């Protein structure tokens, strides 16, 4: 009996060892190998906000999407140039946005309430673009926009506008369409 255990124990241990390695590498690799990740599923372009489904009519863009909001997405690709994100603050609605890296980590998020000078104005720049931007900054002026360097060169932005009352979906969608999200070569002076 004990001889049988002695024979199988190393194999069982080796099996668990392999299982552990396979499990850990599968978990760690998943954000980088899964093709249908959140970036791919949401779509969008780097020129303007694309509206995402209509959860009230059963078109849900991602799990746990809040149906009280109209949701839109836009992408950025810093290799094509810096991306500018601008939104005026709607009257009494609410607008919020989260910026995600290529693997879906929300590295920056804010709402209209946290916005400075009544505007959301964000420039997504790569470290090199930031450098050339800072080199051309006037000496004594603070930049208008908030400059962020995303962890990855591509990624996406999810913008949410509150539907204040049933029937006000159009107003929320209009607020989303008014959000400016585009490449901004003027940042590379």
């Amino acid at each position: 009996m004990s001889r049988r255990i002695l024979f199988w124990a190393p194999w069982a241990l080796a099996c668990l060892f392999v299982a552990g390695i396979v499990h850990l590498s599968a978990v760690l690799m998943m954000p980088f190998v899964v093709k249908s990740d959140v970036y791919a599923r949401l779509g969008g372009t780097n020129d303007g906000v694309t509206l995402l489904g209509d959860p009230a009519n059963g078109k849900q863009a991602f799990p746990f999407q809040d149906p009280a909001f109209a949701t839109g997405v836009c992408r950025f690709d810093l290799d094509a140039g810096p991306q500018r994100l601008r939104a005026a603050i709607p009257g009494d609605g609410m607008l919020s946005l989260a910026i995600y890296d290529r693997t879906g980590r929300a590295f920056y998020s804010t709402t209209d309430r946290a916005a400075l000078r009544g505007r959301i104005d964000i420039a997504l720049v790569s470290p090199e673009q930031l450098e050339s931007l800072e080199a051309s900054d006037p000496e004594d002026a603070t930049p208008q926009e908030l400059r962020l360097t995303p962890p990855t060169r591509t990624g996406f932005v999810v913008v949410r506008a509150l539907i204040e009352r049933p029937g006000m979906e159009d107003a929320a969608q209009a607020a989303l369409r008014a959000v400016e999200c585009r490449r901004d070569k003027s940042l590379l002076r």
Partner: protein
Amino acid sequence: MKLSQAAPFSQPLDEEMRTPISVYALALATLLAGFAIGLFITDLTVGRLYLFGAARSGAWIAWPKTGALDPDPYARATMTRDGIAPLGNGEGLFFLAQTDDAGRALSGNCDYMLTGDTPAARFWTLTVYGPGGRLVADAAGPTHLLSSAVLRNEKGQASITVARSARAGNWLAAPREGSFALALTLYDASASATPSAIANLGMPKITRGDCQ
């Protein structure tokens, strides 16, 4: 002649060869079994929502790290596999309840009453989700509620009923069958997204009523 000379040596060699073959077979079986078990554990731990980093307040669970740059590897894998765009911590705090306060899974067969205050926030939404965070399509009424639409009594208190069929007052429709989850999202919450701050938040109580 040369062959017959070689013959005496072939016998012991052959016997020595027999053991390695079974060892190779065992090693291969070990590898395959390890692979299968490893993938099985991955499937168990990824996709049952988030395994780690939960902050609890009553029946409500928040995962403050999913809305920032540092989700743990399991949360990252889950978000990737299920295509979840988590709410950013700068936007608000997302809470999910899959059980009532007594720890029983929320079921479409029962009525539930939500009472008590919600934490300070600009506003909140309460939403009924089916399995996997899907919105309920076949419910008999509204499945989400905005704080500004909540009816309150003279003392300013509100209670919300979650049930399959229509109720007076604040009512959210539960799915006709099966388990469900409730999400309470605080937008522009004054509490910060840290486990200790979340644990001290007074979240609504979820009490089970009648069951069919």
